[in-house]
């Protein structure tokens, strides 16, 4: 679908380009989940992706991180064409993805899960430092270091997933519903921490059901409907749009 049908609100702040998704299509067998999604994430930018259930948010993230092979379109990351590249080849280039459903390794301990996040890194000291940092972000994880991740509570697992993604020192962090199942306080903490993470130069592509939270946090937002981008604009502008308020904020 062409750009023409996307309703654009407001002006986008300029960021140096990092990720560009151009007309990407994804299908699961007969089901076409993405019908041509186009979006951009700049260096240091936080971009939110909102949309109803089944709109294709998760599929977009999967296509970007290489978990899925798009059937059409182009993805460029850090200046290189990464369309259809395997997930593990994207990690060294600075991509980290905390997937939907958390994807923790249930029979490994919390510590081992975190170590896997730093799988490709060789700087023992850097890793140790980052590990400490994640413990300050999520003190709960420190207490449960030796516990098998599968027995963590839902919220703890979510923390683990985010902390693990950060340990690869990514340029771009893909987060799929990070607030899912988290206590309000924790959600708040996480978003506060994500701000810091972003401030340190990491770009974030965020999928969130809580549109309020997400759009407040993001520089720019896209609205996805049945596999297509239907609206885009700076976070605040979207928040103010009556359509969004009606459809996603229940007002």
């Amino acid at each position, binding site marked *: 679908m062409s750009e023409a049908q996307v309703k654009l609100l407001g002006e986008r702040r300029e960021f140096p380009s990092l990720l560009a998704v151009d007309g990407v299509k994804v299908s699961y067998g007969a089901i076409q989940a993405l019908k041509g999604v186009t979006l951009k994430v700049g260096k240091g930018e936080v971009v939110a992706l909102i949309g109803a259930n089944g709109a294709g948010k998760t599929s977009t993230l999967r296509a970007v991180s290489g978990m899925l092979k798009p059937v059409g379109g182009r993805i460029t990351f850090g200046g290189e064409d990464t369309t259809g590249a395997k997930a593990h080849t994207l990690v060294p280039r600075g991509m980290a993805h905390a997937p939907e459903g958390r994807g923790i390794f249930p029979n490994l301990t919390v510590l081992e899960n975190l170590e896997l996040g730093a799988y490709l890194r060789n700087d023992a000291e850097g890793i140790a430092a980052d590990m400490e940092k994640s413990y300050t972000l999520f003190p709960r994880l420190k207490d449960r270091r030796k516990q098998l991740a599968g027995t963590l509570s839902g919220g703890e697992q979510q923390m683990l997933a985010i902390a693990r993604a950060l340990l690869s020192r990514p340029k771009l962090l893909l987060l799929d519903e990070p607030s899912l199942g988290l*206590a309000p306080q924790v959600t708040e903490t996480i978003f506060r921490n994500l701000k810091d993470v972003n401030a340190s130069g990491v770009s974030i592509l965020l999928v969130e059901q809580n549109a309020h939270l997400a759009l407040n946090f993001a520089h720019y937002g896209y609205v996805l409907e049945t596999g297509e981008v239907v609206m885009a604009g700076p976070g605040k502008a979207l928040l103010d749009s009556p359509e969004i308020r009606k459809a996603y*904020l229940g007002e």
Partner: protein
Amino acid sequence: MSGPLLEAVGVSIQFGGLKALSDFNLAIHKGDLQGLIGPNGAGKTTAFNVLTGVYRPTQGEVRVAGQRVNGWLPHQINHLGLARTFQNIRLFRALTALDNVKVACRAQGSLNPEGVGLGVKFRGALSNYRDWWRALMLTPGFQAEERDLTEQAERLLEVMGLSHRRNEEARNLPYGEQRRLEIARALGTRPKVLLLDEPAAGMNTREKADLMVLIRKLRDDFNLGILVIEHDMKLVMGICEKITVLDHGETIARGAPAEVRNDRKVIEAYLGDSYLESQGGAA
């Protein structure tokens, strides 16, 4: 009988060194709509698991409809009228929406005598095999029963607004609808008490608002006692009459939403200061 339909008395459970739930007390009566909240890892889901028989309490007693059910199997407890949904959706993914509900309906329809003792067991086994036999022979009674089931299940789908999905496989439903299907399925077992584990997770604000209306309606129409775990305070505070707050397995507060909301301990452990602020602003 006006005693509580579901009762937990001094229930504790321990995993290795970790006390996930300690001295947990709860009573749910007909028509109650209660909330169970607390920080992540507080033991809320564990409490559900103990109540429904997935875990066996290390201490204390669980009573359903006046029966002590410690050590019973989940399906037996379910037959006494306790149904639940799961935090991580656990639908029968390859079955259609309708069949998901019918599975639950059936189980209640052919209830066997519960209890211990050889006689009961034997009669149970006999009636089981007779039941299979009826299915194999397609007896008229059996056919009528099947029609009945379908009707029941369809009614439930309608109540949950899922009729248009009846023949779709559960795994192909959007998340929000899966959540509702789980509730429909739980209702299929004709429970007296319904336990909902984070029913609004993954829903957007509007869907949450709809869900609130729905939960209230269920309580009224089906005459249920309902216990909800939820992290969305708007939902919990909005619909629950009584809220229990857990932290580290301990009950740190209990009372009406207004009381709980202003409880210092609850704010510290769970809500956080900014919650108060946002409440001030939004509500």
